[in-house]
């Protein structure tokens, strides 16, 4: 892990000392190869479940989400190169973008592998710092506003989460805050402290997982950041938030008196996230914000799945995995659209089917997959969540979810049709049509559809291990 961290950090800051953009691209490619090599090394050296540097553990959840992050990172690098050339950014800005993106990837990886409650917090705060530079990269008025709000709200939210960690640490023996040690003693803790701690931690981390109540900063961040970086933030960083909350959730599974209460909190937060997503998906006039609210909606479903537990918990993890593939693909498609229309405006741009048929088909199929139409993998996960809700007898929850999801389907589908077939009112840059990029974005979507039709045993076993919280 130490070797991985040293090499990754050196490569991450290397673009700052090289002169050309080409050298930055080579360094970014090397960085990607190091990420791939680190995953291969985990399997070859059989490091699974081993503790590294006292604060990291290569458990199944960490490895699964690291693999997903690396997959998205590869496509992010390809699309970033094209994006930065199209935007004609200065060499300084070009190099800073790659440095920040790679530092963000390292910080996110550390969140995944962190085996210590306090270190998870430290690395999540580090992701805030790295993300801030990327959000501000376009250096326009709104990006400045979004960056300020992102840093301020995340820092304040994460300070609250730290309070929760302090309360949680009252159960720790000799200050040991690794998840396994805490899990063995959490049942001895003061239930009131544990409840307040859970609430503070989930509220604090909600800014990363993009769920209620601090979801707004994530939406603003995705809006202001360059589209390829938005794809990365909206998936890898959101997954970092999910992994952090999932680890706390797993910890609380041993706190018999408090766990039921914690699950109710997650259902409440999930329903509110779903409601917020449904409401703002109807109002949004920007494709990037639109996709961000879709993330809020999907993470709301995940939180509900976690709250219900049982099969729904399995489905929640599977939902996050598939959402990563679908949402990143959609953000990449939106990035390509931006080159053509020079806009993200829902009301103004259209006729995409005739302008870039590959991109339009990719976007429409992506929308259908996002809306959980079969053979979408999200259909599989949502049906599993619904069936578990029915089996526990929470009919009221099922009704609320179905109503809200009808609103979501209407909002998303009407806007997708508008993009494909509505007349365009904006200036076109037809030379920017790049079918290769559209195809590359579709690869992730195809991977998601394959998961909808067939879930490999290795993935099923990995999720089984993750949801084995007893």
């Amino acid at each position, binding site marked *: 892990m130490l070797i991985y961290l040293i090499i990754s950090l050196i490569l991450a800051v290397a673009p700052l000392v090289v002169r050309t953009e080409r050298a930055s691209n080579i360094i970014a490619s090397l960085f990607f190869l190091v990420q791939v090599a680190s995953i291969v090394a985990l399997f070859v050296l059989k490091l699974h479940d081993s503790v590294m540097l006292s604060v990291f553990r290569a458990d199944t959840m960490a490895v699964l989400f690291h693999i997903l992050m690396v997959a998205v990172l590869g496509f992010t690098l390809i699309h970033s190169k094209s994006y930065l050339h199209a935007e004609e950014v200065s060499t300084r800005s070009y190099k800073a973008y790659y440095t920040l993106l790679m530092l963000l990837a390292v910080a996110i990886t550390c969140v995944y592998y962190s085996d210590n409650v306090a270190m998870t917090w430290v690395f999540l705060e580090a992701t805030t710092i790295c993300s801030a530079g990327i959000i501000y990269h376009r250096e326009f*008025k709104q990006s400045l506003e979004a960056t*300020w709000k992102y840093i301020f709200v995340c820092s*304040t939210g994460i300070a609250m989460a730290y*309070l929760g960690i*302090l309360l949680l640490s009252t159960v720790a023996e000799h*200050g040991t805050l690794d998840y396994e040690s805490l899990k063995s003693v959490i049942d001895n803790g*003061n239930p009131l402290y544990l409840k307040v701690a859970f609430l503070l931690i989930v509220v604090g981390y909600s800014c990363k997982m993009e769920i209620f109540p601090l979801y707004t900063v994530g939406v603003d961040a995705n809006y202001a950041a360059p589209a390829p970086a938005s794809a990365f933030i909206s998936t890898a960083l959101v997954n970092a938030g999910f992994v952090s909350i999932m680890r706390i959730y797993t910890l609380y599974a041993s706190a018999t008196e408090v766990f039921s209460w914690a699950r109710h909190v997650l259902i409440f937060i999930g329903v509110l996230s779903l409601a917020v997503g449904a409401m703002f998906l109807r109002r949004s006039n920007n494709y990037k*914000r639109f996709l961000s609210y879709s993330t809020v909606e999907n993470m709301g479903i995940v939180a509900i799945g976690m709250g219900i537990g049982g099969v729904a918990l399995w489905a929640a993890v599977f939902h996050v995995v598939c959402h990563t593939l679908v949402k990143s693909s959609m953000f990449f498609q939106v990035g390509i659209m931006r080159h053509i229309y020079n806009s993200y405006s829902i009301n103004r741009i259209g006729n995409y089917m005739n302008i870039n048929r590959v991109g339009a088909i990719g976007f429409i199929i992506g929308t259908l997959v996002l809306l959980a139409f079969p053979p979408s993998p999200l259909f599989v996960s949502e049906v599993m969540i619904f069936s578990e809700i029915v089996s526990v007898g929470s009919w009221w929850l099922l009704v609320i979810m179905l109503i809200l999801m009808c609103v979501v389907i209407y909002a998303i589908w009407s806007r997708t049709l508008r993009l494909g077939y509505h007349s365009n009112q904006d200036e076109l840059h037809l030379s920017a049509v790049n079918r290769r990029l559209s195809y590359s974005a579709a690869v992730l979507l195809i991977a998601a559809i394959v998961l909808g039709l067939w879930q490999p045993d290795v993935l099923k076993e990995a999720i089984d291990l993750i949801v084995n919280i007893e």
Partner: protein
Amino acid sequence: MVLSLIILYVLTLIYLSIADRFRNHTTILAIQGLLLFGIAMARLHSFHPVELSFIIVETLVFKAIVIPAILMRVINKTKINRIHSSSTQFGALVMSILALIASCAITYYMADNRTDMIFFGVALYALLSGLILIVLRQRIFAHLVGFLVIENGVFLFSMAIGVELPMLINLAIMLDILISILILGMFLRRLDDDMHTDESDALTSIKD
């Protein structure tokens, strides 16, 4: 000794709610850093050079010197002086006193035998004071001060709980917070330069 330092700390929080000049806010934060140093030293059970140097760096160097210096630099560069003229000091004072009463009530309800009740209550009051500053004040600089008051409250809270985290983790937490403040200060200056504003009401250009 500790009790008198704690009482002084509470007084700084009350004064912070009615202070209207940002230079005073910065001075109060520096004083809070000194008080936290005194409190941490008074509670030090035994002499550990590493622990002692960490306390000195975190409270005396960062909280009492470096962070106030960064804030003073921001004040000088942006030429901001006072909190918004429409803000009422009396309302803020009432809110602060209510927060103090609420903190006492919550502490009485929550604290158990493993927790130092006085520290717990003051830490909670510091957190609420920070939140009140963020919610009531319009100027972005006041929000930054509110965030720092919360961070100081978190420091007190860790003493109330009596948690001793490993040094590496403490160091990482301290560095994270310092970098966050540096970046917040940098962006505050950017907001002043590019948008010619230091009021949160002006930050409404992103909407659906």
